[in-house]
C-alpha cells in the first residue's frame, strides 16, 4: 500500500512538474507571438528600425562628444571647466529659446485658415526633422510653448498671431527641406489653402526669444 501511494505521488509530481514547465513555455510563446503579431506589421517595424538606427547614431555621437569633454576636463584643469560651462550655457540658452540664433534652415509660408492643432502638428513635424530653433510669425517656439485659440484669434504664449503664416526652422537643412516639401505638398492639395510654399536658406536668422517663466511649483 505504501509503495502504491508513493508511486501515485510520483506520477502526480512528475505531471505537476511537466504542467509547470509547459505553462511557462506557453506563456512565453504567447508573449512572443503577441509581440510579433498584435498590430505590428512589417512596414511599421521597418519604420521603427529606421528611426532607431538614426536615434542610435545620434546617441553614439553625443556619447563621443561627452567622452571628449570628460577627457578634456580630466587633463585641462579649471580653465577647461570654465570653457565647457560657458559653451554649455550658450547651448542651453539656444535650446531654451532665450537667445537669437542663426544657421541653415527653411522658411515655410502658408496662406490658409489653420487651426492651433494644424500649427502644433506642423511644428512637431519640423522638430521630428531635426529643427533646433523655430519661430511662427516672429514668435519663438519651444516644446512647452502654448499655441491656442481659433482661426480669428490664435495666440502663441499669450501673444496674438494671425495668418498668413511664416514658419522658420533652423537645423539639418536636408531633413528640414524634406519635411517642408512634404508638408507644403499636402497643404496645396487642400482647397482651403490659398498658398503653401517653402524656401531653403543657407543662413537664416531667428531673432525672437522665449520669456522664461520661473518655477513656482516644482523644485529640483
Amino acid at each position: 500500500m505504501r509503495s502504491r501511494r508513493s508511486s501515485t505521488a510520483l506520477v502526480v509530481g512528475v505531471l505537476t512538474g511537466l504542467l509547470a514547465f509547459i505553462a511557462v513555455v506557453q506563456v512565453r510563446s504567447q508573449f512572443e507571438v503577441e509581440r510579433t503579431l498584435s498590430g505590428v506589421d512589417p512596414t511599421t517595424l521597418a519604420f521603427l528600425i529606421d528611426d532607431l538606427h538614426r536615434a542610435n547614431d545620434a546617441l553614439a555621437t553625443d556619447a563621443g562628444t561627452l567622452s571628449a569633454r570628460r577627457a578634456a576636463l580630466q587633463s585641462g584643469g579649471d580653465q577647461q571647466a570654465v570653457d565647457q560651462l560657458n559653451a554649455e550655457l550658450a547651448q542651453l540658452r539656444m535650446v531654451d529659446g532665450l537667445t537669437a540664433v542663426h544657421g541653415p534652415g527653411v522658411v515655410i509660408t502658408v496662406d490658409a485658415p489653420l487651426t492651433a492643432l494644424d500649427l502644433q502638428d506642423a511644428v512637431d513635424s519640423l522638430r521630428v526633422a531635426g529643427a533646433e530653433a523655430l519661430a511662427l510669425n516672429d514668435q519663438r517656439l519651444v516644446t512647452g510653448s502654448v499655441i491656442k485659440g481659433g482661426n480669428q484669434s490664435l495666440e502663441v504664449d499669450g501673444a496674438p498671431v494671425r495668418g498668413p503664416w511664416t514658419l522658420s526652422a533652423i537645423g539639418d537643412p536636408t531633413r528640414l527641406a524634406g519635411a517642408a516639401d512634404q508638408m507644403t505638398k499636402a497643404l496645396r492639395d487642400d482647397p482651403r489653402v490659398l498658398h503653401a510654399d517653402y524656401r531653403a536658406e543657407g543662413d537664416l536668422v531667428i531673432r525672437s526669444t522665449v520669456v522664461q517663466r520661473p518655477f513656482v511649483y516644482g523644485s529640483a
Partner: protein
Amino acid sequence: MINVRKAGAYLLVALTALAFGYLLAAQLRTQLLVPGNRVARTEALVRTVQDLEQANSGYRSQIATLQAQIDALEAQAGQRSGATQSLRDQVALLRAHAGATSLRGPGVTVALGNGQPGAGATDYLVNFQDIQDVVNLLFEAGAEGVAVNGHRISPLSSFSGPAGTVVIDQGNPLYAPFQVTAVGNRNQMEQKLGDASNLGGLRNRQRAYGLALSFQGSPDLTLPAYDSTLEVRYAQPA
C-alpha cells in the same frame, strides 16, 4: 477510507492530466502559428527592433554616466573658484528649465490605454498625436515639466511613430499603456483635464472604442531628468 483516498488521488491525477493536455494543445496551436515566411520575417524584424532598443538603452545609460562624471569634475572646479561656481549655478538653472535635471512638486498623472478594435482602422490605438495633445494641454494648464512613460520632455522634444507606438526624440518606441506625468499648477491642470471641451478627439474615441483616459492629481510627484544630451549642431548664437 482507502477508497476515498484513492478516488482523491485519481481525481488529482485526472485534473492534472486535463490541465496538462489543455496546455499542450494550446502550445501546439501557438507553434502552428509561427511557421510561414511572413511570420518568420516579422519575427526577424522584431528581433532587430529589440536589439536596437537594447543598444539605445545602453547609449542612454552611458550618456547618463558620462554626464554625472562631467558634473562631478565641474563641481570640483567650482569648489576651487567662486566665479566657476557662479557659472555652474547659471548652467544649473538653464538645465532645470530644459528638463535636464529631475523636477519634484505637485501635479497630475494622465493614464491612456488602447481600446478595442472597431470600424476605424487604428482609431482604437493611442497614437503620438494623442500624447502630443495631452502634453500641450498640460503645458497650457501651467505644467513646469512633463514626462511620458518616464521620458522627460525637453524644449526640443518631438513626437512621432506609427499607430500604436510613440517615439519621443531619440528614445525607444513607447507602447500603451501610457502615463503622462506633469509637475506644476495641479488645480489648473485638473480643471483643464476635467473640461469636456478639451481633448475632443480622444474623448470621442474613448466613447467609440473604449480607449482609456483618466487622470489623478498628486501633492508630490518626481519627474526624471532628460536622458540624452541637448546638443545643438546647426544653430549658432546670432
